[in-house]
């Protein structure tokens, strides 16, 4: 009963994470885009707590707090500010339109299911049902990166990709060793900071943050 | 004794050579209903040339002056290797048929250089054509040699003659006949006869050999003319004695030698007659048709070799 609840909660949570990931694909304005990411991170943080509680991994509470601070509070706020500064409220047309994006996303999720089959079989954890969804989030993050033209949305795509892996880690292993987890957070933060520096650079040198124009270096 | 005879044979060849040229010329004239100069006219010409002063181009170098001697000497050297009258010669082992060909090429090489030396357009033209003809005649010669050597088991002239004498049936084998035809064509080309070259003309655009030696006079010209006639004799004798060796002496009795002289003269008359008839009947080929003729001879030689193989 307990285990079943745990399993259902995690599957629900991972579905939530995936759903927000897909929701990201239908968003046009940067504001809503960041919002979707914020919600996704929030669900993920909650999932940390759930797994921490049911799985008997108390350090996950701590991870959840840090995660919340970083990805729900700090990064979205910074992104918003960044968007205002570089005056990129709206995204230009993506390479793939929304309808096709959704179709591709669903295909990617199917692929994720197919590929993670052996992983699911290998794992005995009650949370294993969510593993394909985590893989799906990873793929969708990649897809966002490929299909969006704006530097800021690419950052978000990258963060979604990371969320996918965090989800994978928490579902598959109840969290990786703490020291690694902390290192990863450090990297994420630094990476994010460096990226936002570059967004400024791009804005300063190219007068827009449309990545499409970054095509001078060839061959 | 052998060596003395060999020297005597060479002297005989030297003496005979102008006569062969004169004979062909005379015969040709008769065939064309002209009276013509007597067959011994070339001797007079040689004497006359030897008595004249030499006019040498200012532009020419020492090579121009050396070339006649080299040409003459290389041709003369060949006469030591060719069994005009008897076989095997004592100098047989000094050079084989290939050596004969390359010694003759030595003369041609220097004569061609000498043609270029004074820097006239005709000399260059002659050299160029002479070398072209010489080069494309080479394969046929080599193959004819191949064919002969196959029959005799040797490339040395003495061996070829004695072998053919010992095995008369070989002389009328298809390989032999074809090789003879091939070598005959080549002999015409190498000695500057019709239809490849016309020895009787100084018509500017057609001459080959004559263009090359245009600048020579006096003793030089005499030497060159003499060696040219010697070359003709050599080729005809080769045709005569290698393919139809009967009459060639294999011992040194006076009778055998006398028979050999008579046999050689007879064969030369026959061949000379043939050449004279041919030169009367055919016109000179355009220079660029010559390769076709030599191509025919090459094919003949190739067939000769192949048939020698198959019948071996």
């Amino acid at each position: 009963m307990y285990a079943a609840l745990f399993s259902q909660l995690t599957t629900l949570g991972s579905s939530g994470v995936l759903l927000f990931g897909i929701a990201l694909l239908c968003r046009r304005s940067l504001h809503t885009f960041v919002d979707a990411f914020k919600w996704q991170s929030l669900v993920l943080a909650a999932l940390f707590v759930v797994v921490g509680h049911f799985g008997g991994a108390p350090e996950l509470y701590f991870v959840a707090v840090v995660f919340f601070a970083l990805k729900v509070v700090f990064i979205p706020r910074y992104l918003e500010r960044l968007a205002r500064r570089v005056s990129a409220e709206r995204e230009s047309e993506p390479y793939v339109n929304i309808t096709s994006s959704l179709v591709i996303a669903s295909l990617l999720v199917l692929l994720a299911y197919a590929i993670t089959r052996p992983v699911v079989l290998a794992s005995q954890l009650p949370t294993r049902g969510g593993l394909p969804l985590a893989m799906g989030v990873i793929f969708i993050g990649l897809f966002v990166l490929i299909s969006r033209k704006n530097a800021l949305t690419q950052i978000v795509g990258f963060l979604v990709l990371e969320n996918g892996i965090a989800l994978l880690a928490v579902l598959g292993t109840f969290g990786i060793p703490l020291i690694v987890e902390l290192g990863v957070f450090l990297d994420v933060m630094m990476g994010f900071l460096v990226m936002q520096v570059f967004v400024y650079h791009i804005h300063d040198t190219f007068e827009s943050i449309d990545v499409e124009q970054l095509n001078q270096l060839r061959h | 004794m052998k060596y003395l005879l060999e020297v005597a044979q060479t002297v005989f060849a030297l003496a005979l050579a102008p006569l062969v040229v004169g004979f062909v010329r005379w015969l040709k004239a008769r065939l064309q209903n002209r009276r013509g100069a007597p067959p011994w006219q070339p001797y007079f010409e040689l004497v006359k040339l030897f008595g004249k002063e030499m006019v040498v181009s200012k532009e020419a170098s020492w090579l121009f002056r050396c070339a006649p001697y080299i040409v003459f000497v290389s041709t003369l050297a060949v006469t030591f290797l060719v069994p005009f009258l008897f076989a095997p010669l004592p100098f047989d082992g000094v050079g084989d048929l290939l050596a004969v060909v390359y010694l003759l090429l030595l003369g041609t090489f220097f004569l061609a250089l000498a043609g270029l030396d004074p820097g006239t357009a005709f000399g260059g033209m002659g050299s160029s054509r002479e070398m072209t003809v010489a080069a494309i005649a080479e394969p046929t010669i080599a193959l004819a040699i191949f064919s002969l050597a196959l029959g005799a088991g040797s490339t040395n002239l003495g061996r070829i003659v004695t072998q053919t004498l010992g095995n008369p049936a070989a002389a009328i084998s298809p390989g032999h006949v074809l090789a003879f035809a091939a070598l005959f064509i080549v002999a015409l080309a190498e000695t500057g006869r019709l239809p490849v070259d016309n020895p009787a003309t100084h018509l500017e655009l057609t001459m080959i050999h004559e263009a090359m030696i245009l600048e020579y006079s006096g003793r030089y010209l005499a030497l060159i003319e003499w060696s040219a006639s010697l070359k003709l004799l050599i080729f005809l004798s080769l045709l005569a004695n290698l393919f139809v060796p009967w009459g060639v002496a294999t011992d040194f009795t006076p009778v055998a030698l006398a028979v050999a002289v008579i046999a050689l003269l007879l064969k030369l008359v026959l061949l000379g007659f043939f050449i004279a008839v041919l030169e009367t009947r055919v016109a000179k080929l355009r220079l660029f048709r010559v390769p076709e003729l030599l191509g025919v001879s090459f094919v003949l030689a190739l067939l000769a070799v192949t048939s020698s193989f198959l019948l071996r």
Partner: protein
Amino acid sequence: MTFVLLLFPSLLAALLAYTVRPYRVVVGWANAWLSLVSLGAALAFAALVLAGSEAPTFGPSEILRADGLSALLMVCVAAVAALALFFSPGLGRESQYDGAQLRRYHVFVNLFIFAMLLAVSANNVGIMWIAVEATTIFSAMVIPLALTKASVEASWKYILICSVGITLAFAGTVLTYLDFVALSGRAENALNWPVLLSAAPGLHPEVMRLAFVFLLIGFGTKAGIAPMHTWLPDAHSEAPSPLSAMMSGVLLAVALYAITRWKVVVDAALGPSFSNQLLLLLGLFSLLVAAFSLVIQRNYKRMLAYSSIEHTGLICIGLGLGPLGVFAAFLHLVCHTAAKSMLFLLSGEVLHRYRSTELERVSGLLKVMPWTGALFMGGILAIVGLPPFGLFISEFALIRAGFAAGRPGLMAAVLVLIGVAFVALLRHSNRMLYGAPPEGVAIGEIGRWRIAALFLSVGVLVVLGLTLPAPLEALLNQVVKVVAK
């Protein structure tokens, strides 16, 4: 303790550069000399390994460890880092960069070096991953020292592609850990490499296959394996030359190191054929792409970068050929490190003099800077695999390993592609070295000490070309023992 001496100097150098504001020349020199301490420590590890001692470890839950493989990489990294730091901007009086840029350069370059050293000395594969990810972040900060469109573009592509790639590698790490947890429960030091290795035979093959794909793609992105190499020519050509030297010389090696580490684990679980086949496939593809990209090339730094991809491909192929191949691959790695770092440093001098990275604008190098030109030529001859340089021997060993592994067809393809790269590289470098210098290019040599320092690299290459010093051979054998038992 030695670990401290290895890692601490670069941190200290970064701190020094950070605190001294504005930048002073003395900081640059101090950093350069500090790097020699790291080099000493790395050599000490190599000596330790050679002395046959059990791999030394350090820190809580043995977070750092130095076996033969690590020691080899440490020496490479520390040596190239020291060389690059002595060639760094801001050591002379005049510099093309202003104080703030120099300060930023010195802070981040040293952090970058720290991250690389950490990556090769980390015992915990998670830490290793973190360090590799950190190399991207730090080096990306140095690429656009002077803000130009090109440098910004290059660094954005660099950071995004590499971050994405490396994140995928993390997914692979997580998958392995997941499998490990499924097998033997959660353990704090489970990600320590020896622990992982000892558990590996029980891991699920299907999961490990997936994990290795993620890891290979992930670290492969960093290593410049095609088709994930796309950032490499851009970043290498736009980065300041000392950084290019480090990136091409050792960063790729560090990423290959990570792949090797994982390969050992995966092989223990699956047997070697799976990882070998993937490595051969991707290695050959890299070779193909690199060789033909070299044919038409207009920029000499990009040319060098593509050559790095070519050599990465070769090393991958070597790694996929069994013990002999591994030996050859790491010998090749060492030689390539020496040659390519030198070439990038020289290309910095060329760029400084000719003010252009276009091949068309560079000619008569041998006349303009005879010694630099000669060194450059030596480097090119070395990387195309001509004797008497080490790469000739290592390529020979590599090809021989391929034949020994019964893959003559593959080796034929490799030989053809190397040949294409050979001609292309020589064609381009001929254009640079010979001919008349363009107008307005000053004739004169660079500093004598710099030349002397680079002659050290050439010396190393020649020594490796003619013989194989016993210590290095022993170290390489240690590596083979670690990688392909």
